[in-house]
């Protein structure tokens, strides 16, 4: 496919935001019919670049050529008209609306609904991504939601399809299907700009790769000719060491969940169905699953935001299912939710105040109802010191911290409470490689010190690296936990539910 004509040429693209230069002098070429990887860590400038191509952001300098002609989209509609489509990672679907309505919203001149529905059916089956146009999007699985976005783009015959982290919401089996679709599209001459930080995937599917670091192009290569390690080092710029794993004997059962079922408090959420698990002191249980299969609900049920009958959740043999978050913290369970800003931390409150938020009980920051602000500040300082949180001080609003630093603060706050049980959802989501490594190390250190730990994550590599045993959430069910040693990717994929929603539009396969 190399040697085909240049479809999109970028020259010297630059975009600065107050305080950061997101993109600086970016230039590379995407050819028709190629799958071109855009590789880089969080914050490397991938999403700003893509937004410029899609017309959501205007470059400060530089130019773009599409098929040799000047291309300067002022809004997404212009980009779509020029044949550029984009599949978003988040934030572009409307939960309460049907598939067909969602597709129509992404098109310039959609045909009448009935016709559109027929087109959706035809195109989706043609590309192996079956969809029922009449279903409400909020009821779909993460993989199906992605299909909606892809089909929405395909209906407009794009010449360039931008895909932002497409596999983060898919099981391994679903990834295979997606790759088949992408190859078919490439063979038909569509160029694909594939954004990811998953190196094996890029080696499998991409013809070319452009690597960004701190807003600049630092390398280009043919991924299949490089090892994943080489790619990683180009991306990060340093050599990484995997976390050390001190072998420690496992203790008694610290957390036990017996048949937990709960409806979801989240609109279009997933109900938990008869969850059973137990974690021993010193053990790390990794829970995998595609987004939206009950991860958020599981965390809420474990940390007490969702309550249940008292016997269903036990900590060190004590029944605490009926207790709320405060009662459970008292019993020794701490939790770090996925969403840092707004759930784990209050954006407009200072770090000291955020330290009180969950540390009040175990760190005894409150006496007879009154808050001891001195102790609270000392606690916040301790977290900042021990977890290397980069901040000007403790009296800074949480929203002022970068994602990675806030994550270190939140995880640090929970880990510093001498807990018996720790539940963490997506510990390293959106965090750069160095910070992610230090968070994983901190988790393992706590396990070595005798805490029972549950890590919920969509990053399989991460789970396989730090977990002793492994389970998967699939539509609110939790599989039987199995030891990590000896698990294959195939088995993991099946535990995660194989391929979701294929029956929905196809009928029984």
């Amino acid at each position, binding site marked *: 496919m190399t040697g085909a004509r240049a479809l999109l040429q970028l020259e010297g693209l630059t975009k600065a*935001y107050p305080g950061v230069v997101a993109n600086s002098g970016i230039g590379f070429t995407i050819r028709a019919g190629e799958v071109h990887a855009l590789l880089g860590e969080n914050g490397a400038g991938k999403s*700003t670049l893509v*937004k410029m191509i899609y*017309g*959501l*952001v205007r470059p400060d300098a530089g130019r773009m050529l599409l098929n040799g002609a000047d291309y300067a989209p002022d*809004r*997404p*509609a212009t980009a*779509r008209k020029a044949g550029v489509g984009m599949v*978003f990672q988040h*934030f*572009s*679907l*409307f*939960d*309460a*609306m049907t598939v067909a*309505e969602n597709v*129509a*919203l*992404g098109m310039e001149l*959609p045909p009448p609904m009935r016709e559109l529905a027929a087109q959706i059916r035809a195109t989706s089956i043609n590309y192996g991504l079956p969809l029922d146009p009449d279903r409400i999007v909020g009821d779909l699985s993460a993989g199906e939601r992605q299909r909606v976005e892809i089909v929405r783009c395909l209906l407009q015959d794009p010449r360039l399809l931008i895909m932002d982290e497409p596999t983060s919401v898919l099981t391994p089996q679903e990834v295979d299907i997606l790759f088949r679709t992408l190859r078919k599209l490439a063979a038909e001459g569509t160029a694909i700009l594939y954004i990811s930080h998953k190196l094996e995937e890029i080696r499998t599917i991409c013809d070319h790769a452009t690597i960004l670091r701190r807003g600049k192009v630092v390398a280009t290569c043919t991924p299949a000719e490089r090892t994943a390690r080489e790619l990683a080092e180009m991306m990060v710029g340093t050599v990484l060491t995997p976390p050390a794993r001190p072998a420690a004997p496992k203790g008694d059962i610290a957390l036990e969940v017996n048949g937990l079922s709960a409806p979801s408090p989240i*609109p279009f959420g997933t109900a938990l169905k008869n969850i059973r698990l137990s974690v021993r002191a010193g053990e790390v249980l990794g829970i995998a699953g595609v987004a939206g299969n009950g991860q958020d609900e599981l965390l809420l049920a474990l940390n007490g935001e969702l309550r249940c009958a008292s016997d269903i959740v036990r900590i060190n043999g004590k029944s605490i299912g009926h207790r709320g978050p405060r009662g459970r913290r008292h019993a020794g369970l701490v939790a770090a939710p996925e969403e840092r800003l707004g759930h784990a931390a209050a954006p407009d409150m200072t770090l000291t105040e955020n330290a009180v938020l969950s540390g009040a009980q175990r760190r005894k920051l409150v006496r007879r109802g009154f808050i001891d602000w001195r102790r609270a500040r000392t606690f916040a300082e301790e977290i900042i010191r021990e977890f290397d949180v980069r901040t000007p001080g403790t009296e800074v609003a949480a929203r002022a911290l970068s994602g990675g630093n806030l994550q270190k603060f939140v995880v640090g706050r929970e880990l510093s409470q001498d807990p018996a049980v720790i539940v963490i959802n997506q510990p390293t989501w959106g965090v750069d490689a160095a910070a992610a490594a230090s968070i994983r190390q901190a988790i393992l250190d706590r396990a070595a010190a005798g805490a029972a730990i549950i890590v919920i994550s969509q990053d399989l590599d991460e789970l396989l690296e730090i977990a002793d045993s492994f389970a998967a959430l699939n539509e609110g069910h939790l599989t039987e936990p199995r030891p990590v040693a000896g698990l294959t990717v195939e088995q993991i994929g099946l535990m995660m539910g194989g391929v979701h929603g294929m029956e929905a539009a196809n009928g029984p396969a």
Partner: protein
Amino acid sequence: MDIGGINIITLLATLIVASVPILMAALGELVVEKSGVLNLGVEGMMIIGAVIGFVVAVQTGNPVIGFLGGAVAGAALAAVFALLTQVLLANQVASGLALTLFGLGLSSLIGQGWNGIRPPLTRDVPLGPLSDIPVLGPVLFSHDWMVYASFALVVAVWWVLRRTRAGLILRAVGESHDAAHALGYKVRRIRMAAILFGGAMAGMGGAYISLIRVPQWTDGITSGAGWIALAIVVFASWKPWRVLLGAWLFGGISVLQLSLQAAGSRIPVEYLSMSPYVITILVLVFISSGRGRAMGAPADLGKTFHASR
């Protein structure tokens, strides 16, 4: 057809008229809320519409121009709300309250010296043979043009929201402003347009009170109709035809209590006059307790949108 000295057909016909102001205001607010904005200033916009509509109608001698004036006045006040919430990102609840407090003060200021005047008459326009149908004729088809216009608006709002692309986009913006923004829709502009429409509708509803329903100007003439319109939107689960139902229900109660007062009921006047509010509360409770969530409420209702990066 008389019960306790009250003629049922007259009662029903009056009910239709009494429900027009809240019907208009609630329809407007429904569109606003569908776009994801909660404007609690309906009462303020209505009363400004009532006073300006009245003054304009008296000055020009033409009630139609009066209604236009009411609509413009309501929209002008709504523009202040749009500026505050969409451009200056102020809290929607507080801004809506400010609108109501300001509207009440300003209306009574403007209305000074206009008390006790009768506005130009708006005639009933019986709809030919339709008005001769027994019962339905006098109840539905023997009214002024605004009544028919309000029916038409119910259909129009339903049609636009359900069947047109503009309606689809409006609902999308209310459902998720982030997603709509990512697809390139101008969230702020769409919401501002909806807010202005809501203001114009509330203004016309208010003008109907001072020009036809009462018809004269007194301070505080809307007496909570704007709040009841807000309640009706919730009652209606954000569906236009159920707004009609809600407006009729409330119109019925207020007409019935007035008839009971006039018929010399033994229930004290004060209790009769509080009944519409009490019943509105009861209906709200009934609706909100019925099914799990407030069905049909736009997901991003009341949230501030600021496009970052």
